[in-house]
Every structure is written in C-alpha cells, then in structure tokens.
C-alpha cells in the first residue's frame, strides 16, 4: 500500500521553498511541513534558501498546533535565509506573528499579499527594526512635532482606492 500523501506540499522554485498547507492547520500538517522543510533545508548550506509559507488555502487552525508551529519557526529561524507567510485571514496572520515572536525570528514576516511576501524575501533587515523605522518615519511625515496634527479641510477626499 503506498504511503499516505503529506497533508502539506513543499516545492522549490529557485532558491525559495514554497509550502502550501491546505485546510485546517493541525499538529499533523504542521509536523509534516516541518519534516519536509527540514529535509530540504538540511540538504543545503544554512541560510541558502528562503521559505514562503502560503496559508491562503488554510481555513483555520486547531489551538493545539501552537507548540508545533513554534518548533517549525525555530527551525526556520536557524536554517532559512528569510521566511515569509502569506494569508488572507487576519487570525492566521496573528498566529504566524505570534510564532515568530516565540521563536525570536526577526527574519520572518507575515503578509496579506503574495507580492509583498516575495518582496520581503528579496530584502534585508529585521522585522522589528523595520516596524520601528516605519513607525518613526510615518509619525515624522504626519507632523511629528506636538500640536501639528490638524483636521482635514471640508470635503477633502482621496482620489483612488
């Protein structure tokens, strides 16, 4: 009897591993992902491969997966050059962010779109440093000095979406 198919597929495109779990994330599916990613990451020099985990076909998750997800993230923190998650559901993005924090992986980030995730994989710099830099820049651009904020003029509107 042939072995059961893995509940999550991992493929390679160039120097990027792409993982695409389907359905509810379970301990089994997360462990399967870790097994496959570990096998491929161990076959190459450390930090030579980036990892993209596409959660857009994952609908939800069992709360029991949190420990397994942190272990997966620790593997990625140690072996992946850079990691990006993409999901179109906020609670999955929150779960991924939580795991990155537990694993102390500043080289990973989660995104709402594939394009933004791929851009991150090609960039450098830690997620937390980036968050700080963007916040300080945004505050400065919006009128950083106290008292500079003002109500918008009557009838002002953006021109596009």
């Amino acid at each position, binding site marked *: 009897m042939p072995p059961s198919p893995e509940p999550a597929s991992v493929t390679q495109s160039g120097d990027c591993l792409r993982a695409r779990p389907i359905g509810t994330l379970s301990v089994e599916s997360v462990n399967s992902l870790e097994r496959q990613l570990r096998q491929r990451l161990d076959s190459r020099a450390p930090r030579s491969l980036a990892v993209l985990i596409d959660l857009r076909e994952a609908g*939800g998750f069992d709360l029991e997966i949190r420990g397994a997800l942190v272990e997966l993230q620790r593997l990625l923190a140690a072996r992946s050059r850079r990691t990006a998650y993409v999901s179109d559901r*906020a609670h999955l993005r929150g779960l991924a962010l939580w795991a990155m*924090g537990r694993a102390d992986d500043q080289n990973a980030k989660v995104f709402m779109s594939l394009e*933004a995730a791929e851009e991150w994989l090609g960039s450098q710099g830690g997620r937390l440093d980036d968050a700080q830099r963007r*916040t300080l820049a945004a505050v400065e651009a919006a*009128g950083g000095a106290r008292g500079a904020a003002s109500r918008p003029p009557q009838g002002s509107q953006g021109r596009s979406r």
Partner: protein
Amino acid sequence: MSTSSRLTLPQRLFLRVLDAMTARAIGKPVPWMAEMVRIHGIRRGLVFASATQRANELVTGRYGIRDGQILIGLAAMWNGCVFCSRGHVWAANLYHFRERGELFALDDAEVLPMQQLPDQEALARVLGTLAAPEHARLRELIERQFHLKRGDATGESEEDRYLRVSIATWDWISECSIGTQPDQVFPPDPIARDRDLCERYLRARGRA
C-alpha cells in the same frame, strides 16, 4: 515562566513605572507591557512608548477620537491582534455612546469573529455595518487604509500620511500585543476609567 520573570531587575523596575503610568492614564496596565519590555529593553522601550503615544494623538487628532479609534482598531485587526483591535473599537463605541446616547454601528464584539474571515469579506462586513450616510467619510478611510495595508493602494491621498501612521504603529505594537487572550481585552483609553459609562454601555449591548 512568566514574561516578567524573564526581565532583568532594571527592566522589571521600568515595567513597574510603565504599568503605573498606564494605570493612571487608562485605569489599568495593558497585559502585554512586559512583553514590550522583554522585546525592546529600556532604551528602545522609551522610544516605543513615546512614538506610539504620538501616533495615537496624530490619528485621533486628525479624525476625531471616535473615528480615530476605529481606524486604529482596524489597523490592528488586520494583524490578527486581539487586544488592540477589539480594545480600540470598544473605546470608539464608548465615545459614541457617551456623546450620542446610542450604540455605534460597529460593535466591538464583532471584531474578533471578523478576523477569521477572508480579508475582502471582513472589509465588506465592516463597510456594511457603516453603511449609513453619516459614515461615508469613515468608510473611505477604512477602505483606503485596507489597501495601503495590503500594499495595493493606487494613486495618492492626502490622508495616506495619517493612515500610514495607524498601519505602521500598530504593526509595531502587534509585535508585543499579539499574545493577548480575548478575556484580557479592555478599552486602552482614558474613557475606560468611567466605570459607570462602561457598565451602561455593556448593559446597552446586553453583555452586563
């Protein structure tokens, strides 16, 4: 091992100061402050505290306290943050309830379930609850914020500077707040100190 027990002694003292200041401002400490200190330490923690306070002022100053809190709550909602998403929408509800004596269209209790929906569906639901003509401006801002957050906004809007403040700042805050549990959420705003108002609001929502 709790987050606080992993802090150094100076960090624990710093945390106590922050917690005391937060409690004085909004009624009680936020549950994720220890995590903030653990992640950032003292020096960077001071930068964090100052910048996030300023960001709150800029967004609420630009859009008014109620709509500013809604935009902040939604910025956090897209990150999957439980505390800041529901908390700030809750604060918005309190301001609306205090000013108008009526319930706001977007119930804070709807926020966490929306995080489980596909993004476009969640956005449509938010916009749908704010369908009344009086919320036209807020709907525009929410939709613009969503597209800026997702990275597919087109053109330029003079509101982008302020919307980016909400997005960037609550990306940074979510790093610390992401582990908060739903039963730890409260409105992180000085209005939460008005216990009578808070209780009347909950009764009006049928949750007291």
